């Protein structure tokens, strides 16, 4: 059983607190991704699971056993480093098989196993080379091979693809996904790239400043982000945000914002809405005067298969709109308008928590009526 659980884990370096009170459970066989901006503590958390860093407080369990003080060499996990960390003075073959040398396995059995793993990762023709003679992608495979050969209960990946070129990254991403399908071992993967998280994970753990913002499946995090941070982190291009005001008038309230935005009835009576969010694909660009929100179309990006419009809303905010087709070039630099459906809106309080719509449906009040 290779489940992993962390209970109230915290870590500080001196007075600098890096991880705050993390609670987490990972089931056997799951592929979990730790994602977050640089410095959020995801690598530190991974190293705590591995035993390379000891937690300042809290408990780490593997398979139900308390391993908090167990050294890394005894935890039965495999770690793939961002910089690959291959032994530079050993051949690829020895690098892969090195861990088996101290397990009392016969030399020919080791060689056979190394051969098998190398073939699977397509580096079997490189067995006699040294790491410095290999390309980045090849080194990465050798690093994975070194982990594989030990048949570990848990695989840990620390931003393994960050140092690779874009197309190589895509290829390796697929290989890692396939590896998980084949082996069905528990895998914990750390990355700052949210698209890697979205495509590889069974569940994603979003971290920010050493705290867990949300845990969920990619779909859950995308459709139902729990707060402003997760909403803005997951999804590319990023969700559009706009600071708004909640105004009370007579018996009902409505939300007003720049560009003539008006939305009827605040979804939560107690807490005022400070910000709204909407994804680029939920917006439609319409001629000025005909939409919910006025804007200035500043720029269009044509990526061939996709088109994005950048619109200035009010005086400061820039919104991204995904367009179905290339727009009229004459419209660039001129006023326009945006329209959307209310159910694609996300509402956030001043402290970033997501406010869910109340049971009552709310009407749409056009700013232009």
């Amino acid at each position, binding site marked *: 059983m290779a489940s992993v659980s962390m209970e109230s884990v915290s870590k500080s370096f001196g007075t600098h607190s890096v991880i705050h009170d993390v609670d987490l459970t990972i089931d056997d066989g799951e592929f979990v991704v730790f994602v977050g901006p640089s410095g959020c503590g995801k690598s530190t958390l991974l190293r705590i699971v*591995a*035993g*390379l860093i000891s937690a300042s407080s809290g408990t780490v369990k593997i398979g139900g056993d308390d391993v908090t003080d167990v*050294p*890394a*060499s*005894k*935890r*039965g*996990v*495999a*770690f793939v*480093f961002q*910089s690959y*960390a*291959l*032994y*530079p*003075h050993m051949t690829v073959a020895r690098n892969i098989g*090195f*861990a088996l*040398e*101290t*397990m009392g396995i016969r030399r020919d059995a080791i060689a056979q196993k190394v051969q098998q793993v190398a073939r699977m990762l397509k580096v079997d023709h490189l067995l006699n080379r040294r790491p410095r003679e290999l390309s980045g992608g090849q080194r990465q495979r050798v690093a994975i091979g*070194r982990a594989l050969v*030990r048949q570990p209960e848990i695989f840990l990946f620390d931003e393994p693809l960050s140092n690779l070129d874009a197309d190589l990254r895509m290829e390796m991403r697929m290989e890692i996904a396939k590896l998980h399908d084949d082996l069905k071992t528990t895998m914990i993967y750390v990355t700052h790239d949210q698209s890697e998280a979205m495509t590889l994970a069974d569940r994603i753990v979003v971290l920010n400043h050493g705290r867990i913002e949300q845990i969920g499946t990619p779909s859950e995090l995308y459709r139902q982000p729990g707060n402003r941070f997760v909403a803005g982190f997951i999804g590319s291009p990023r969700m559009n945000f706009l600071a708004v005001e909640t105004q009370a008038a007579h018996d009902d309230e409505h939300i007003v914002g720049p560009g003539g935005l008006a939305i009827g009835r605040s979804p939560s009576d107690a807490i005022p809405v400070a910000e709204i969010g909407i994804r680029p694909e939920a917006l439609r660009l319409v001629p000025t005067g005909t939409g919910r929100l006025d804007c200035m179309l500043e720029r269009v990006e044509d990526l061939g298969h996709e088109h994005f419009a950048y619109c200035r809303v009010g005086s400061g905010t820039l919104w991204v709109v995904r367009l179905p087709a290339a727009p009229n070039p004459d419209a660039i630099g001129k006023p326009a308008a945006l329209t959307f459906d209310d159910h694609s809106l996300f509402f956030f309080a001043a402290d970033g928590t997501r406010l869910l719509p109340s049971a009552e449906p709310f009407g749409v009040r056009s700013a232009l009526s």
Partner: protein
Amino acid sequence: MSARLARRDHLAAWLFLVPVIASMLLVAVWPLGRTFFFAFTDAFLDDPSVYSMVGIDNLIEVFNDHSWWLAVRNTLTFTVISVAIETALGLAIALLINEAIPGRGLARAAILVPWAIPVVVSTKIWEWMLNDQFGVINKLLEALGFIDHGVAWTASGSLIMGVVIFIDVWMTTPFMVLLILAGLQMISQEIFEAAEVDGIPAWKRFWSITLPMLRPAIGVAVLFRTLDALRMFDLSYVLAASNEKVMTVSIYARDRLISFQELGVGSAASTWVFLLVALVAIIIIGALRLDRAAGH
């Protein structure tokens, strides 16, 4: 870069090298050449302008001198044993300081103290500590019951070489520690982490990862220390002047030159010293080159 610019650059380079070339010609090349020259003469120090050529007679005289071979034996014994101990001890201390233990910063600073003290001073301090009647070492050993009365460390013929080696180890292990520590810190921490996670036990991590990766640093350290040890003078001289048991080849040559005023024979002895050191240097550098080539 055009050929003309390149040539101007080369000229500039040589101009910048003029001071070092001039000074080295003056204090290194010229005196060395003169030493070689005098080796073939029968000149004496009181009047060096009066001499005649004697061919290789001086060289043979030194070669046949029993004292010379004693000095060679002393020097080689001293070199081999000290360098071996300093390397092992230096490695051990470097590994210790590399660990994240409280007090390692203090140790790293303290390590520099024996190295900074002049050889002469260190020798005097240890001489005092090893004094047979009043030295603190003897008092300690007596108190612990290892001996009944103070040992005359520096008077005894068999012990004095041990004392010389011991003092040298104390003085120069810091140098080894610093070099090896620098080599250690150049190894990426992640490599050790990878080995740890992979379940490699500590002894095997040391033997198969740390040590092979330290080979270049240790090699350089051993090279420098060995060549230094071969020309050792201060320690033996201050401790026991011309005691034959610890006389090094440098002391022998200088004695012939200064004490006996034999410019000719003294220079011949110096020439032999030069050949000895050159030979050892070539051997070690050759070994290091081979080692590096094998590693590729």
